[in-house]
C-alpha cells in the first residue's frame, strides 16, 4: 500500500507538465485500488486540444514475460512440445480513438507507435523469425482477448464540443497489478502533432494487499498461520460433530 502510494507520488512529480502544448489530458484517478470486493473499475480520461485533430488513447499494463506452449500429439497424448517466450507483453492493452484507427494513421505509423492489437509486436527471447513466432503471437492475443485483458471492441474518445474530450477506460476484475501508462496522441493529417503520457497504478489495497505482502515477506509465518487456521477449523468441526 505505502509502496504503491509512493510510486504514484513519484510519478506525479515526474509527469511533464503540459505547458504550451496542443494537448492536455488527465485521469479521474491515478490509482485503481483492488479491494476484497473488487469487480473491475472505470476510469475517466479527460482533456482538451488546441486546434483540429484526431485522438488516440492507448492504455498499456505492466510488461511481463509470457510463455506460450504448443501441444502436439505424441504417442497418442497431447504433450507440450515447443514454446516461445515473449519478454515484454503488456498485462493490459486497450486503444480508444475518436474515429476508426485506419482513418487516423497509416499502417506504418500505427506500427511505429504500437497502435492496435494487429500491429503489436513482442520481443521473443530466442530472437526467432517472425514467421515462426506468428501463430504463437496470435494465440497469445486470442487468449488475452478472451480474458478481457486486450478488449476487442474499439472504444471511443468522445468530443464534447470542439476542444474538450473524454473517454472511459474499463478495467476488468482480473486486471493485473502494477504500473500502467496511459498515452494520448493527437494526430493531424496522419502525423502525431502532440502526445502526452500519464502514469496509472493498479494496486491491491486493504485486506488483500496485506495478505499478499505478508505471504511474500513472511512466507514461513504465513504458512504457519494457514496451518493453524486449518487445524483450528478441523478441531472445531470435530467438536461440533460430536455434540450433533
Amino acid at each position: 500500500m505505502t509502496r504503491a502510494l509512493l510510486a504514484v507520488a513519484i510519478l506525479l512529480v515526474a509527469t511533464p507538465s503540459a505547458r504550451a502544448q496542443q494537448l492536455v489530458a488527465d485521469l479521474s484517478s491515478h490509482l485503481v485500488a483492488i479491494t476484497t470486493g473488487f469487480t473491475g473499475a472505470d476510469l475517466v480520461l479527460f482533456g482538451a486540444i488546441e486546434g483540429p485533430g484526431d485522438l488516440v488513447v492507448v492504455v498499456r499494463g505492466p510488461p511481463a514475460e509470457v510463455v506460450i506452449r504448443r501441444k502436439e500429439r505424441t504417442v497418442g497424448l497431447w504433450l507440450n512440445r515447443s514454446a516461445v517466450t515473449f519478454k515484454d507483453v503488456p498485462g493490459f492493452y486497450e486503444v480508444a480513438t475518436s474515429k476508426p484507427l485506419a482513418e487516423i494513421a497509416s499502417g506504418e505509423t500505427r506500427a511505429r507507435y504500437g497502435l492496435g492489437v494487429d500491429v503489436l509486436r513482442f520481443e521473443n527471447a530466442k530472437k526467432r523469425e517472425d514467421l515462426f513466432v506468428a501463430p504463437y503471437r496470435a494465440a497469445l492475443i486470442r487468449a488475452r482477448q478472451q480474458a478481457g485483458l486486450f478488449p476487442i471492441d474499439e472504444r471511443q474518445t468522445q468530443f464534447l464540443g470542439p476542444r474538450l474530450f473524454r473517454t472511459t477506460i474499463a478495467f476488468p476484475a482480473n486486471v493485473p497489478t502494477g504500473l500502467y501508462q496511459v498515452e494520448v496522441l493527437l494526430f493531424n493529417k496522419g502525423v502525431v502533432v502532440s502526445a502526452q503520457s500519464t502514469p496509472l497504478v493498479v494496486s491491491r489495497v486493504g485486506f488483500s494487499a496485506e495478505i499478499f505482502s505478508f505471504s511474500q515477506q513472511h512466507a514461513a509465518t504465513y504458512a504457519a498461520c494457514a496451518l493453524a487456521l486449518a487445524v483450528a477449523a478441523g478441531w472445531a468441526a470435530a467438536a461440533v460433530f460430536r455434540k450433533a
Partner: protein
Amino acid sequence: MQIYLPIAEMPVDALVILLLGTGVGFLSGLFGVGGGFLMTPFLIFLGIPPAVAVGTQANQLVAASVSGVLAHWRRGNVDVKLGIVMLIGGALGSVVGVELFALLKRLGQIDVAISLAYVFFLGTVGALMLIESGRALLQRRATRPVRRKLHMHTFLHRLPLKTRFPRSRLYISALLPAMIGFIGGLLVAIMGIGGGFLLVPAMIYLLGMPATLVAGTSLFQIIATTAIATFLHAVTNHTVDVVLGALLIAGGVIGAQFGTRLSGLLRGEQIRALLALLVVLVAVKLGLDLVLTPDTPYVVQTAPSP
C-alpha cells in the same frame, strides 16, 4: 458475492467456492476420503492457477484430516506407531514431491504431469475398487464363511527392518509402511490430494492391516504430509491462498456433516462401488482431455507478477 483472492489474483464467486467445498465435503464424509482428487480439478476448471489450486488444496486437507482423525482417535482406531513410520516416509515424499513439482514446472510439463498422474492413479485404483466392490455386491447373498489367512505372505514380507506393530497385530518390515507413506507424500505435493484413496487399499492389501484401523491411521499421516506440503508450497512457491482455503474449509465442514450421516444409511460395498465409479469417471474425463484434440493447441503461461 464476488471476492478477490489475493494470491490467485482473481475474483471468484464466494458462493460457488462454498458450494464446491460443501459438495466435496459431502462426498468425503460419505466415502471417508479427503476428496482432493475431485477438488483440485474443479478449482483448475474454475480458472484458479493449477499451482495455487494444489497448494491451497493441501491446506484445506489439513483441516479435513484433523477433523476426521479426531473422530477415529476417540474410538482408539489410530495405530500411532505405524502412523509415525508412514509419516517419516510421507515427509520425505512430500519434500521430494515439491522439488519434482518445481522441476516439472521449469520443464513446462506440470499440467501434463498432473493429468497423467491423475489418470494413472485414479484409473488403476478406481478400476480395482470397482471390480472388488462389484464382486462383493454380486456375492452378497451367497455368503461363504471361508477360513482365510490373516494376510498373504509375499516377497514384501522378506524385506529387512522387521518391526512389531502391536496395535495392528503385524510383524512386518518398517520399510513397507514407510514406502507407502512416501508415495502418499509425493501425491500430496504433486497432485494436491491427500492420497487416501491410494493409501487405504495399500494398507489393507499390502500391509494386511485390520480395516478398522486403516482410515484413522491413514488420516493421521495425511495430516503430517499435507501440513508439510502446505508449508513448502507457501514458502517456496507462494501458492497457498488463505482466502480460498478458508472458503473451502467452511464449505467442507458443513458438507462432511451431511455426508457422514448419509453414509450410515448405505452398506459398505455400495459406498465403495459408488466411490469407485466416481474415481473412474474423473480418470476417464482427464484421460480424454489428454487424448482428444484440444480446442487450441496453445497454452499461455504468464510469469507470476513480482
